[in-house]
């Protein structure tokens, strides 16, 4: 080997090492999300608290009552208030403020686009879609309206339309909101790893970009959710804690921690987290989970109290025409309560909203009402995209078991334990026990 060749070889080795280092660093940097324990909300202290912002805009309107712009800005803060506290009445106030704004300035694009987003938040997806579509047709530069169009399509189960729009929007700029939506789509299509990668990037970018504490905490919360959905409870817990550090009293993060500690068998801790979340906002899902925990730890009276509170909220929601239909249907089905109501609510919801969880809720309600054939048709619809969600597999498994399709039931239930065994506080035991029976009979 001559000298020149060996130098060349040495150089190429150095170059390769350097390149791999650079590439490695670059691929780490592209994520941008710090380790969970290094995330805190310190850098986000500059945004005025929502109460202060609301007061400011209210004062401005008292001085200048015919100012449509401030009405729209006030509406935005009411939306923020609803997001931060979980008190949905904020959306009603936002709607009122936007209507005031549009009364003063009927062609005010920003106000009507925001109104579409309020409809979306109130789960009136059809109205949101119509309004956002109309706004986008008036002005093709209104990307905010286009995002709402896609979101509404997604909620209504029109996944292909939604995906096409998100991809179109990502050509204009890969922003955290777009990344988060693409991540949700990947998760839905059965690629949870890709979803997580996208979501981590969205959270990293959002943390860099700053904004409201709740806004940033939401991205971190979604990262935690995605870890939970693939059964990585430790990672999920860390990111839920990070979200809570960014925005304290964040009910979604508290409930997330409740979910994680229940999955890890720490029931007392889990109850405490759920209790804290409920003290901030008594969401039916948190109350149901707390009730399940009480049932699991041998406190049926306490469990009963939580379940009855859920029923009470359901009654109130019906009277106020609010939007807990699917949550309630699932709650009733899960707890073998009011099964006729569960089916009615789930089918009504499916009428207007044909997304995978709409099919799932209807399938589960049909199953609980003994209509196994119908249930299977519906659950197949729910799983048609290949979503790797333990809950869907559990329902499919139980339905198959009821129809004596034992091999199918076994496959599905094995998937449940492989994906996310603790997807539900109570159903984990059912899934394991049923699988045990199936394996025993298959072994014979």
């Amino acid at each position, binding site marked *: 080997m001559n000298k020149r060749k060996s130098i060349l070889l040495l150089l190429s080795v150095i170059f390769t090492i350097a390149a791999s280092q650079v590439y490695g660093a670059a691929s780490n940097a592209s994520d941008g999300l710090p380790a969970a324990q290094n995330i805190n909300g310190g850098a986000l202290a500059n945004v005025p608290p929502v109460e202060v912002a609301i007061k400011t805009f209210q004062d401005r309107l008292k001085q200048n009552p015919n100012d449509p*712009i401030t009405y729209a800005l006030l509406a935005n803060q009411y939306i923020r208030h609803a997001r931060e506290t979980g008190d949905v009445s904020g959306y009603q106030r936002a709607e009122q403020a936007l209507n005031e704004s549009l009364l003063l300035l009927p062609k005010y694009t920003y106000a009507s686009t925001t109104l579409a987003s309020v409809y979306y938040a109130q789960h009136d997806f059809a109205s949101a879609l119509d309004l956002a579509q109309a706004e986008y047709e008036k002005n093709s530069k209104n990307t905010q309206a286009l995002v709402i169009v896609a979101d509404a399509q997604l909620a209504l189960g029109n996944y292909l339309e939604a995906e096409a729009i998100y991809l179109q929007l990502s050509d204009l700029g890969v922003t955290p909101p777009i990344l988060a939506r693409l991540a949700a789509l990947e998760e839905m299509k059965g690629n949870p790893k890709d979803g997580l990668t996208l979501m981590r990037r969205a959270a990293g970018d959002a943390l860099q970009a700053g904004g409201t504490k709740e806004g940033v905490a939401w991205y971190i919360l979604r990262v935690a959710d995605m870890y939970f959905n693939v059964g990585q409870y430790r990672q999920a817990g860390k990111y839920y804690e990070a979200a809570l550090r960014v925005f304290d009293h964040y009910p979604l993060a508290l409930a997330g921690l409740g979910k994680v500690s229940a999955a890890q068998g720490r029931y007392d801790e889990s109850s405490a987290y759920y209790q804290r979340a409920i003290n901030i*906002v008594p969401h039916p899902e948190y109350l149901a989970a707390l009730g399940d925990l009480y049932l699991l730890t041998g406190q049926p009276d306490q469990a009963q109290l939580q379940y009855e509170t859920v029923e009470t909220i359901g009654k109130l929601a019906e009277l106020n025409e609010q939007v807990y239909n699917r949550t309630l249907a699932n709650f009733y089905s899960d707890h073998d309560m009011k099964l006729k109501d569960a089916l009615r609510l789930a089918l009504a919801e499916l009428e207007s909203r044909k997304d995978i969880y709409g099919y799932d809720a209807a399938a589960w309600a049909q199953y609980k009402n003994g209509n196994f054939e119908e249930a299977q048709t519906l659950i197949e619809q729910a799983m048609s995209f290949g979503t790797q969600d333990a809950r869907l597999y559990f329902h499919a498994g139980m339905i198959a078991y009821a129809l004596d399709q034992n091999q199918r039931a076994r496959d599905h239930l094995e998937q449940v334990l492989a994906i996310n065994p603790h997807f539900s506080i109570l159903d984990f035991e059912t899934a394991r026990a049923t699988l045990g029976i199936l394996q025993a009979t298959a072994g014979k």
Partner: protein
Amino acid sequence: MKKLRRVVTTALTLFVSFALAPVAFAHPLGNFTINQYVGLTISREMILVDYVVDMAEIPAFQELAPYDSDRDRQPDSPAIQSYPADKCASLQPALNLFLNNQPLTLAPASSFVEFPAGVGGLPTLRLTCEFQATIDSTNKALDLSFENNAFPDRLGWKEIVVSAEGVSLQGEYSTTSLSNRLTNYPQDLLTSPLDQRGVEFEILPVASSAQIETSAPAAETAPLPSNRNDEFTRLILLEEITLPTLLLALAISFFWGALHAMTPGHGKTIVGAYLVGSRGTIKHALYLGLTTTITHTLGVFALGLITLFAAQYILPETLFPWLSLLSGLFVVGIGLNLFSERFKSSGLGNRIVSLKAKLAVPPKYILSSAGNMESLNHSHKYVLHASRDHHHSDEHARRHPHDHHHGHADHSHAPPEEITWRSLLALGVSGGLIPCPSALVVLLGAIALNKIGFGLILVLAFSLGLAGALTAIGIAFIYAGKFFGRFPASGKVIRVLPALSALFISLIGLGIVVKAAVEIGIV
């Protein structure tokens, strides 16, 4: 169905007055709020605490479920009898009363509970607790503070009201209940739920009939007259823009801009006064107007951009006090600068002073003619001085070339009273620094309606009107100065007036600074 009927019957029998209402509405503040009212009544020997908790349907359900033996969502267990006393006792530790920083023991006096029907006959819960504490305020002042730490995480109305019986109180507190003890919540879009968690005040030893009370809600700034600005902001809604309507719109914008110049708080008196006080010419006045126009227009644009793109991060309102502060500091600086120069001139240039004395007029004279501009008397005295000086520089120089020459020659630095372009710039900027909120609204409206060009022109016209008024004031002063400068006058006080008036400019600037600093919360 049977269950529902029973609920309704129970509701009807138990709460006739409520059930008679044709529709049962949701709790006005949302069905999971817990709302609290604290009424403190202070007398010479006693403090009475009137504590009311109003729970909406969901927390009321959670609270009452243990007392509902037949699961009809109505409390029926005999144990409910002891509920109010028990609940009041359990809440009492969260109500903290401090007398001279020492915790004061609250003794329960009475308790009462009722269950007004909410949505669908579901009960809400209204608990009333009375506590009392003894004090002795006969011969010494007492510091009293109160904190309500009950239900820390819950959304809801939190109100504290204080009233005095036979004692005087000093501090900031409300004396009337906005919610009428949680029975009538204000529901308009522009009122947020109160969040009063604590109150502090002093009990004065001697009871006097004239109580010193400052009520917090009343302390809010009075709203500006709104209809005036609305005329201007409505211009942006013009559907069709033709040449005549455009011209009309521009004229209206200009007019409102001029009117805006007359509203207080922009240091415009100072600007006008300085202009003429320092040998200003019409050229200077125009330059000043231009500076103000540009600053104001740029300020509106900048704030508009902030509102549009950073409203999430910064509220433009929070910038206003800072702008005021900056503007005030400008004025202080200008005043101090003038003062130091004039002070020197009043001591050193005796011949100048004697000349000034010859030309000066008694202060009152000018005051009466210029007094309608704005209320700052002292700046008008300064105007008086200003007019004399102007006279000195423009006309008198022709008649007394020697004196004039001397005035310039015996100082090594720039002659006093000479206008510097830099100080004019500073004044112009300080006058235009605080953008008019209506101009901001117009700009944002224009952007919202995709009529950006039109909005820019309107804002520019508005700023021009503002600056035009300012320039007009200046020019009026210049001519007034020339006119009054012809009257002979004398008096030693005139000698120090220039320096004094400069000092007053600084004081006015300081006033603006202090007011802004208080708003920001620095002092």
